[in-house]
């Protein structure tokens, strides 16, 4: 087998370079730890590809510049970390309402408030349940290693264009800051609908309008129904998840992002010792792999959800299981990163307890 080309860079840098590969030519952001390598990298890289890099005066300015660039047809991205993402929520709601494609990156840190700078998963609710006002969702990807920081970033741009929707990459301080080798998968542009709505000057044609304000009778309801139809389609077509040793498992650990990666260390150790334990990892958080989890429930199986927060995704797991299995939870809030030893202990005792 020919050896694959591998790259070694930080997660944030891998994400930034993948964005450039996918044709992102507009980036605006405002500094915050632990995502600073993204603007740092793109400030160098964008000029090389005749793209635009702007360090804006605020998070609000940055995300609204992305709104403008997206309306003009560019592949556009902004990034921040938790408190900065809260500031961007108004514009994200506007992007969803105006049906504009954009990629928003959240390299999560501990909250609430300014919190701290260590890795966290406490923005799950904000990412998957809306975040801003109105009936909308972002499509949400949750990378758990650097290969996915690369691959899912390229996918995010395609899905944003395909569905005309804001897409969020929900990372965390660990995947953002760490380095590990990954294969820089070449970008292959899929067939995508033509951007027939782009605001690029009305020469020789009538003017177009891109907006989220819908004041006419029934107009806003119609817009909402279009959005809901998109979300239903995403649920059918875009769910991504991964299973490890779930077939014969009596206890299934459910985790996303970095928690899944750390959890996998503990699950493998317990498997080696002969316990029937597996791990289920949602890769898209919206659309959530509810059907796949429902299919695993029943047959006396139990679930254990682990998250680096006080219990958020566990609610979606309980909805998916719908009473057919016992669902336990273990979490660490406040930017505390699990240790494999800690999870090994927790999962071992959860396994031992008869449900």
């Amino acid at each position, binding site marked *: 087998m020919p*050896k694959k080309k*591998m790259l*070694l860079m930080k997660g944030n840098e891998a994400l930034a370079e993948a964005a450039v590969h996918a044709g992102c030519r507009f980036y605006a952001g405002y500094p915050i*730890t*632990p995502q600073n390598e993204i603007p740092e990298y793109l400030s160098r890289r964008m000029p090389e590809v005749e793209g635009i890099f702007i360090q804006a005066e605020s998070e609000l300015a940055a995300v609204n510049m992305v709104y403008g660039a997206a309306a003009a047809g560019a592949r556009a991205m902004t990034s921040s970390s938790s408190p900065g993402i809260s500031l961007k929520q108004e514009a994200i709601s506007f992007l969803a309402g105006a049906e504009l494609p954009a990629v928003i990156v959240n390299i999560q840190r501990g909250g609430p408030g300014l919190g701290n*700078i260590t890795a966290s998963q406490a923005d799950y609710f904000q990412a998957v349940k809306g975040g801003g006002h109105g009936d909308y969702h972002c499509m949400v990807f949750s990378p758990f290693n650097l290969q996915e920081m690369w691959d899912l970033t390229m996918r995010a741009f395609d899905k944003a264009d395909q569905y005309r929707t804001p897409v969020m990459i929900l990372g965390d*301080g*660990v995947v953002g*800051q*760490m*380095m*590990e*080798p990954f294969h820089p998968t070449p970008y292959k542009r899929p067939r995508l609908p033509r951007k027939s709505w782009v605001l690029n000057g009305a020469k020789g044609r009538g003017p177009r309008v891109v907006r989220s304000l819908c004041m006419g009778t029934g107009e806003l309801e119609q817009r909402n129904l279009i959005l809901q139809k998109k979300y239903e389609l995403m649920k059918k077509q875009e769910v991504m998840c991964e299973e490890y040793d779930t077939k014969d498992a009596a206890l299934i650990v459910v985790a996303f992002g970095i928690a899944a*990666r*750390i*959890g*996998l*260390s*503990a699950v*493998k150790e317990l498997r080696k010792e002969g316990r029937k334990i597996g791990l289920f990892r949602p890769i898209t958080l919206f659309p959530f792999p509810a059907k796949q989890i429902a299919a695993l429930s029943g047959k006396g199986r139990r679930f254990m959800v682990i998250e680096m927060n006080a219990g958020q995704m566990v609610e979606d797991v309980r909805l998916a299981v719908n009473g057919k299995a016992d669902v336990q939870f273990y979490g660490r809030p406040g930017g505390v*990163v*699990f*240790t*494999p*030893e800690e999870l090994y202990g927790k999962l071992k005792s959860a396994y031992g307890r008869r449900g």
Partner: protein
Amino acid sequence: MQKSIIIAGSGGQGILFLGRVLTSASMIERKEVTWFPSYGAEMRGGTANCTVIISDEMIGSPVVMIPDILIVMNRASLDRFRPSLRKKGMLFYDSSLITEKLAKKDIIAVPVPSTNIAGDMGNPKSANMVMLGAFIAKTGILRKTSIISIFDDATDPRKIEAFRANKELVRKGIDYIENT
């Protein structure tokens, strides 16, 4: 095989760079490897540390609480990380800067006078590279040639001189372990 290594010292000692070289060399040998730095305010003039995990299998957590190997380049880092070292774990320390006798119960202590050796070479700030050489020679986790080859292909012409110096410093570290 899986080895977790915590490298710690003060900001400016090249702690993160030592880890990066180790990570690059592991990649050359097609091993699974992760590098995770301390980041944020603590790096400013204070302590710096990073965790490197080298493995033959997929690595789960890039963060560890109980490392197999500890490399400490100053006294504060020794005090902070020494209690977490695994039993029978290896402790590499800069014996030019940490001169007192260490309690060696349950650990393999490897003193390396890396600051002095680097100083003799006219490069006292590059004690990290001497320590890297000593680490490679003592543990045998990676081939010496992998480390050396990192410094063979400087794509940036401004770095050719620094790379050449680093190569010499790594060799000195290897010599120190093999010939003393």
